[in-house]
């Protein structure tokens, strides 16, 4: 699928306008009823930087799919609704998808929103496909809730084992944000590292609205860990690391995909050196499609995307939806929540242009974990954990 996609990109770039206007496939696609893809994302509010880039990634994929003839000859139409990462607005968006747009499935992200939408998706028998949240609880939210994004148990377990076995660190301070993103992941890290034989010398939470972390960091410093694992969000992670360095803590820091952010490097400068982050999607050196995508993004947006791995998943979701609809089209089945789930489980293995092979394992998905570290102010590959 990866090489097929590269061919498709050349085709599109070679004759995009002609193909769109004259190709019988594309012309036919435009005359048929569109397939609508609903996506609930934070377009405003504190998470809008990520949410808008996620939406842009999905929109780019929709354009590529439409340029290549749509899905089963039908054009694709994207409906993006704002959630502000707020559960209530997430519910409102879902009700609109179901009640007004009549969609049998929708894409969503942010753990609190995914959880709030789950009872409605289960009740209304609509496929809820998570493509950005990583709370382990998502796997248990019900029959109609599936994830295409690996949950925290994938990267955190592998990271904790890597720190103990490969880096040889025996003592860790775990600092985490006191919300559903931080708590579950911090517990996973603690349990995995302890089971491997390591010792957690500090296990400290901070408030999601906190801007001052001195008390927590002084306790962590007194525990004298060999390494620090920080599980926060994009906004607070640079602040915590900056205050660590101000307090003389020179330990190497590990984090997860939220810290894989070019803005963090700008904010921290030399303080970011040595930082290890996880990425759940292949980088430019692992998948040639990613380099092309990144160049295209820079050309269209004039900058790099916020949270590139997440954007790769958002892009790929359109291709995953395409595979589901084409499967049902071949079987002449209508697209309903049930039939789409049946297709998801029947296809099981997807080759996606940006994130590569994806195997749906029930309500979970397993993927390789790519570790990156900061060297001389840039993220460079460190290891791939399978």
């Amino acid at each position: 699928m990866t090489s097929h996609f590269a061919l498709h990109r050349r085709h599109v770039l070679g004759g995009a306008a002609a193909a769109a206007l004259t190709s019988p496939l594309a012309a036919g696609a435009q005359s048929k009823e569109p397939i609508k893809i609903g996506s609930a994302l934070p377009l405003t509010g504190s998470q809008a930087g990520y949410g808008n880039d996620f939406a842009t990634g999905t929109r780019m994929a929709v354009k590529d799919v439409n340029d290549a003839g749509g899905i089963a000859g039908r054009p694709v139409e994207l409906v993006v609704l704002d959630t502000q990462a707020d559960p209530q607005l997430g519910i409102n968006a879902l009700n609109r998808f179901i009640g007004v747009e009549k969609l049998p499935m929708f894409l969503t992200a942010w753990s609190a929103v995914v959880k709030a939408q789950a009872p409605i998706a289960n009740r209304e028998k609509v496929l809820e496909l998570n493509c950005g949240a990583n709370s382990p609880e998502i796997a248990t939210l019900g029959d109609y809730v599936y994830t295409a994004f690996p949950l925290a148990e994938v990267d955190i377990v592998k990271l904790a084992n890597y720190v103990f076995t490969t880096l040889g660190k025996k003592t860790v301070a775990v600092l985490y944000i006191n919300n559903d993103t931080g708590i579950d992941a911090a517990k996973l890290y603690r349990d995995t590292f302890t089971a491997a034989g390591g010792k957690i010398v500090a296990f400290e939470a901070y408030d999601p609205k906190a801007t001052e972390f001195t008390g927590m960091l002084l306790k962590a410093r007194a525990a004298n860990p060999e390494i620090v694992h920080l599980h926060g969000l994009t906004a607070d992670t640079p602040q915590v690391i900056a205050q660590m360095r101000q307090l003389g803590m020179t330990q190497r820091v590990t984090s997860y995909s939220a810290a894989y952010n070019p803005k963090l490097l700008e904010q921290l400068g030399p303080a970011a050196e040595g930082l290890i982050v996880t990425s759940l999607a292949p980088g430019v050196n692992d998948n040639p499609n990613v380099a092309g995508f990144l160049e295209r993004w820079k050309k269209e947006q004039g900058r790099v995307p916020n949270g590139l791995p997440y954007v790769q998943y958002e892009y790929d979701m359109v291709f995953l939806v395409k595979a589901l609809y084409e499967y049902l089209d071949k079987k002449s089945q209508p697209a309903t929540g049930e039939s789409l789930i049946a297709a998801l489980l029947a296809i099981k293995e997807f080759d996606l242009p940006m994130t590569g092979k994806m195997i749906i394992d029930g309500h979970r998905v397993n993927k390789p974990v790519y570790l990156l570290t900061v060297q001389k102010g840039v993220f460079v590959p460190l290891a791939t954990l399978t």
Partner: protein
Amino acid sequence: MDYLITLAILIAIYVILGASYNLVIGYGGLSTVAHPIFFAIGAYTTGLLSVNVPELPAVVNVLLGMVTAVVASVLLAGSALRVSGDYLLIASLGFQLGLLQLIKNLDFTGGPGGLSAIPSTILGAARGPAFLAITGAAAVACVFIIRAIVNGPYGRAISAMRDEELAFTALGRNAMSMKIAIFAIGCGMAGGAGGIYAYYFQYISPDQFEVLASATILTMVVLGGMGTPFGPVVGAILLLAIPQAITFLQLPPAIMAPTQGIIFTVLVLVFLYLRPAGILGNKARAI
């Protein structure tokens, strides 16, 4: 249709919240910002009972949610109002933030991830219309109960207490018990709204009851007309329906995101500029 029904149910829930907050702050003159925490107490009590004691009927759970909110409000007002009315503002804020921290750090409440798996209670195609009928009836009942309270002799006493507490006390009336009673009635209604919310949406999280929710309910009351029986109804409808209507403008998402915030803010400012006492407010009472 389901979309409109859900929106109508949400509006009805916020009508209860707005109307009951209006009783406390608009008619009673009690400075509090913690109305969402009583909404939360009702929602969490009902939600936890429905999950852990499934044999209890939904109506009983909602009533117990109301009772818990009333008890909490009496305890808060009884202690905070002894010093000075203004202390209620600080105490209520502290109570709201403290209780939310407690909810976030307890395992049985679901912590910051929220409480899910609340049973649906009513199943099938009739679920939406049934909830709409129940919530709508509750909202209408709340508005008219409050209207009856404030239009009667007790209402005139409330107004007298709010406007001239010293004179009111000098006449031998007990301002303290009246304040506690008003606070308890208002907070009990908010607790009931929380119970219905928990059953309908089947998920609650502490972030939904933060200070931002206080600002939303306060804006509904001020925009609609503080101290008017139907002002919060208008405020709730406008503040919940306008943002949804804006999403139907079919603007590109890149334009929609900033435009939505600007349109909404401008509309609120225009309303408050043209009608400073609120849309249904009495101009004579405008500050």
